[in-house]
């Protein structure tokens, strides 16, 4: 099995994020790591490899610091890591990013492409299925169980769906996006981390992806970012004090008259 995993460097969920006063961007605290759902994808790829053999390659697109998450992937056990790194690739929307990632995947043999259900920063869940479309392969999102049948060239997956689960079969190659519950990602061994820190990370530029600068990044995006906005602030909490019976009475009164929520 040849497996490609797409991973993204994202801020920790606790990182402080501030919208710049002029709305031109956001300032994010230096506290980054591999997107949680992507780590599920890496783990699943490694488990499949451990069962059936083959290779796992991790690909990321982003600024040069994205090598950190590729190193995490190597520490966990992936065989190779590729960073798509070029100024022109940055600042694009999910569509433009997917286009470049798909071109990266195409440079490799693949039976399965895995990624997280969505990235923490934009929470879109778009890149995976769009990559699948560029590759011309089917996609299943939000999978919580994967059973590969390499002989039959197919994969059976369980996905979270409306009101329950669906059991789906897809021919290989296919793209799957990982949902919580798929597995528990391993903590990389210390020696794996050390090895990863020394590992060579391959870089691919636009030319080797066979793409032009107008097809990717901000120019290749289908969306235009107009401005960033501070989220509306909830008014300060009103503490209701007293003994439980009084608290309850006051709460109901407030919900009725002030919040008009009853």
């Amino acid at each position, binding site marked *: 099995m040849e497996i490609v995993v797409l991973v993204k460097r994202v801020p920790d969920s606790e990182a402080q994020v501030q919208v710049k006063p002029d709305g031109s961007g956001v300032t994010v605290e230096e*506290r980054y790591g591999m997107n949680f759902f992507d780590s599920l994808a890496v783990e699943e790829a490694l488990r499949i490899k451990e069962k059936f053999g083959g290779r796992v390659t991790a690909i990321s697109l982003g600024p040069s610091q994205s090598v950190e998450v590729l190193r995490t992937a190597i520490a966990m056990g992936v065989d190779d890591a590729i960073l798509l790194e070029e100024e022109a690739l940055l600042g694009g929307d999910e569509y433009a990013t997917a286009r470049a990632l798909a071109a990266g995947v195409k440079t490799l043999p693949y039976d399965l492409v895995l990624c997280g259900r969505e990235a923490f920063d934009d929470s879109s869940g778009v890149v995976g299925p769009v990559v699948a479309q560029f590759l011309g392969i089917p996609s299943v999102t939000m999978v919580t169980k994967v059973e590969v049948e390499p002989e039959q060239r197919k994969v059976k997956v369980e996905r979270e769906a409306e009101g329950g689960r669906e059991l789906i079969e897809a021919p290989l190659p296919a793209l799957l996006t990982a949902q919580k519950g798929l597995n528990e990602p391993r903590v990389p*061994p*210390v*020696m794996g*981390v*050390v*090895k990863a*820190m020394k590992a060579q990370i391959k870089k691919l530029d636009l030319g080797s992806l066979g793409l032009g600068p107008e097809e990717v990044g901000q120019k290749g995006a289908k969306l235009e970012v107009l401005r960033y906005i501070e989220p509306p602030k909830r008014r300060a909490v009103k503490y209701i004090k007293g003994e439980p019976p009084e608290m309850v009475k006051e709460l109901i009164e407030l919900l009725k008259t002030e919040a008009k929520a009853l």
Partner: protein
Amino acid sequence: MEGLDAVVVGGGLAGLAAAYRLAKDGLSVILFERGDHPGSKSMTGGRLYLEPVRPYLPELWEDAPLERMVTKERVTAMAEGASVTFEFTSEGLRRPQPHSWTVLRSPFDRWFGEKVAEVGGFVIPQRKVTDLLKEDGKVVGVVAEGEEIPAQVVILADGVLSPLGEKAGLRGPLDPRYAAVGFKEVIRLEQGEIEKRFGLREGEGLAHLFFGSITKGVFGGGFLYTNRESLSLGLVVGIEAFAERLPAEMPELLEEFKARPEVAPLIEGGELLEYSAHLIPEGAHRMVKRLYGDGVLLAGDAAGFALNHGITVRGMDFALASGALAAQAVKEAKERGDFSTGSLARYEELLKGSFVLKDMEAFGHTSEVLAHERLYDRYPYFLCSLAEELFRVGAGPKEKISRTLWRFAKDLLLDSKTWKDLWRMREL
């Protein structure tokens, strides 16, 4: 990695200095830090005396995230409703090199961690070292949450509580007599506002210590340091003395300190960024049986290296120097191919030749002097009452200054205890 030379436990200043020197000298080293990055568990009041450290880490400081060079020193004796302040400034604090700087440890240690990585050391965050690997009583590596990491030598820079130093048999558990807790607020203020408020030139800073009634008769004091765009304001309180008296709830002490008219205007309009706490060794070198063992060394707070001298409070410089000297001893041990106790004894030799053990030996008993409670009630009260008499013009005729001084000394100060205290002060 086959044949790892050294494991360093703890991404504070001692551990970072050790790992930096080792990596720089070409040894293979892994540093473990249990937080997200070096510095995420570190906390200081904070001022770093850089001058003593330069010989041991000469090349490092160019791009260090130091906050402000301290050019103004203040000490305030606080009594109930009154205080006396002493202020000192001099060109000597600036030239030829600024001798001390205010620092915030999270960004500072994080930067240092990057320096370690730059010279080839492996800094592994989010990993807690839970045990030592031992073979026939010799330390041969560490266990990090279940994973065994063999190494020729282990440098324990695991902080003031040093759970691993205990496991190595190098020290006992920290005694509450020999520890104080420091806790503080980091308060945001505009850069220019800080300079205006404290009468500072750009990039220059103030170190302000307080002692007296603010700790309610308990060993300790207050501090205020100016950072680039924030103030560090907090208290240090002796654990045992506090536990004996329980004069208030600990967090409340800081609130009362902040409300003092001497302090409130200094922090007015500031925005609280962070609240933090950490233990400080105060004479904790007594807990340490040996500074080294078979395949293991103790550095920084773990070794009890810190000195509270009343008006100078030092620890970070000891940590940096002891870490660098531990690395030096390990490097020499590697050249000899011998990491046994006898070989690592070189570490103590190096420490003795440096300010670390020289100062620890000269001033190691100051904590007993400072533990004396009269310092926190009677003497500040004396100073303030005297000042009141001298400065206040009341309704009746004013006394001659000489007479006032004599009366005060006689009434408030002159007893056998005072003489005893004075005799003890020679330790300082």
